Every structure is written in structure tokens, then in C-alpha cells.
């Protein structure tokens, strides 16, 4: 980093295990200006001093919630103007990767360590939109991506 302006990062995921994994990446954001977005206000206390956005929780089985979530993420992206979008999972990460590419941002997808046997469905869908496309299991790595560089655990 050049020291003049720090990189703006938007770290985004759904709740539970995806969020816990996103937090484990915090040391990688050293020197960056990071904002977090996730589905529960309860998680705010885990990222003190960071900008924090709450979005609607949604799965692919609830289209209305998905639409609300997508609009919320679009607004956050326009407001935050992140240089890089990072996600460990699920629907919020999918929308953030798609919108990020649409807005010309760089994107990082780190597929959840819970997906041992195959990449998550979302992880497969976002591959073409992720500039850095990672799996946390070496046996799921493929030439051209997803790549393996270690795990959060």
C-alpha cells in the first residue's frame, strides 16, 4: 500500500459459520479501511471501530428476502465504494461479487471450510466473478481456480 490512501474493503457474509470465518481473516486486512456487512446486529460488537451494516437475512428459498438483501447490498456498495469486496459465503457474498464486478471493483471469494466434499453452490456460481477464487480444501482446488492457499483454521 502506498501510505497515502488505504484500500477500502467491504467484508460481507451471512451469519453463523460464514461470519466466524470472515472474522478470522481480519489480520489480512491490516492497513486497510474495512467495513463489515452481515445479517445480524448482534455481531456489531465483534468488529469494534469498523463501519458495520446490517442486511436482511435470506436464503435462495425466499425470493422476497433475497431481493431486499440485494438492494441493501447495492446501496452499501454505492455508499462505501470499496476497492475490494471479500466474502466467505452465501447469498450476500454472491450479490456482492456480482455487483462488485459490475462496478469495476476487485473481488475475493473464500469458500466456506464447511464445504468438504464439493464447493458450495454459491461458490461454484461466483467463480467467474471472483478475481481471487479460493477453496479451503486442497482436494477441491483446480487449475484456473478455485485455488488453495490454506484455511482459516
Amino acid at each position, binding site marked *: 500500500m502506498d501510505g497515502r490512501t488505504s484500500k477500502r474493503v467491504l467484508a460481507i457474509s451471512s451469519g453463523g459459520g460464514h461470519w*466466524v470465518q470472515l472474522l478470522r481473516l481480519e489480520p489480512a486486512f491490516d492497513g486497510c479501511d474495512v467495513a463489515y456487512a452481515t445479517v445480524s446486529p*448482534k455481531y456489531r460488537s465483534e468488529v469494534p471501530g469498523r463501519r458495520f451494516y446490517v442486511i436482511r437475512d435470506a436464503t435462495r428459498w425466499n425470493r422476497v428476502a433475497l431481493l431486499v438483501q440485494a438492494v441493501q447490498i447495492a446501496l452499501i456498495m454505492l455508499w462505501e465504494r470499496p476497492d475490494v469486496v471479500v466474502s466467505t459465503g452465501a447469498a450476500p457474498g454472491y450479490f456482492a461479487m456480482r455487483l462488485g464486478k459490475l462496478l469495476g471493483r476487485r473481488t475475493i471469494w473464500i469458500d466456506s471450510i464447511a464445504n468438504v466434499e464439493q464447493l458450495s453452490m454459491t461458490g461454484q456460481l461466483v467463480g467467474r466473478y471472483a478475481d481471487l477464487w479460493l477453496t479451503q480444501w486442497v482436494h477441491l482446488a483446480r487449475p484456473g481456480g478455485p485455488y488453495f492457499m490454506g484455511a482459516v483454521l
Partner: protein
Amino acid sequence: MIFVTVGAQMPFDRLIRVVDEWAGRHQRTDVFAQIGQAQYQPRHIRSCESMGPDEFHATLEAANAVVAHAGMGSIISAVERRKPILVMPRRSDLGETRNDHQVATARQFGALGLVEVAMDEHELAAKLERIDELQAAPGPDGRASPHCVMCPFADKPERCAQRAVTSACPHLLSAVHAFLAEEHPAIEQYAIAPAAAGIA
């Protein structure tokens, strides 16, 4: 204290019932469970529906052992605090989750020695009998930290000196950091080529 948790998403009555009955049989008063929006109301153990992160971490800190569903939030939280953890995977055919990824997760992390696994209620009941003897996984080389068991350079110590870390794999962190910093290393320079890892 035994801390039981089923995660933030869905209840897991099948697990709670077994723990509750075990606690009743042994008159255990030192069990606390986070049970979600459950149908089954435990009769022998204290419980709550959900917890914020601060309460969760404080309870985990006070626990001698953890019993949980095979969710990554529970597993990572227990392992990073060196708490022994016994997990039972949710099953999709019983409506406990949407797919069977927890079964694979439990098997894999069990094989790595990071968690103790009960595949069903019978195994859970049997393993609860020895819960007080359960030990947190030893780290690589017998060191204190269990981290980095999946280090891409685990068998190449000359490439990784950081065998005991309290955070994510340092290779993963430095790769993400390098990408953020726009140093633009060719991805092949820091990614592990599948061929090198023995993947066809």
C-alpha cells in the same frame, strides 16, 4: 461446565434431548445449552434460545467441554480457544438442515483430530459418558496450538516456520493481503497447484 450449542440458524432437538436425558441420569447440574427455537424443552439442563457473541464467548471461556452440531462457527470457536468439542452432524432427511454437509464436515474434522464425533444419538449418549475426559486436540508437533493442521506446507517445514498460530493460516492471510495491496503476484506463485498437492 459443559456448554451445548446448536448455532444461530435452526434448532436441533435430537441433540438437546440426548444431552438432557444424560444430564438427568447423572444429575449433572453443570450443563448449559443454547437450543434455538426448539420444540423440545429440556427438563434437566439450563438453556436459552439464542446468545449474542459476547455472551457466547464468555460461556465458551468458562466451559470445560463443548457439545455442538457440526457447524463451522461452533467448531472454529471451540478449537481456537482450545476447548475439547464433541459434535453430532445434522441430517437433512430429518429436516435438521438443508443438505448433509455437516456429515462430511464432522468426518473430515474428526479425521484431522480436531473434534470428537458422534454420528448418531447412540454414539452421542456413549461419548457423553466420557465427556469429562475429553481433551482439546494437540497441535502440530505436539505444540500447544492446534492451528495450521491444514497448512499447505505441513510436510515442508522449510517453507512454513509458523506452525503454531492463533489465527488463520498465515499463507492464506498473506495471500489475501498481497491481493488487497495490489502487489499482483501471479496467483500460481502463492497458490498451491493441485498437481503439487497430488491432485490429478
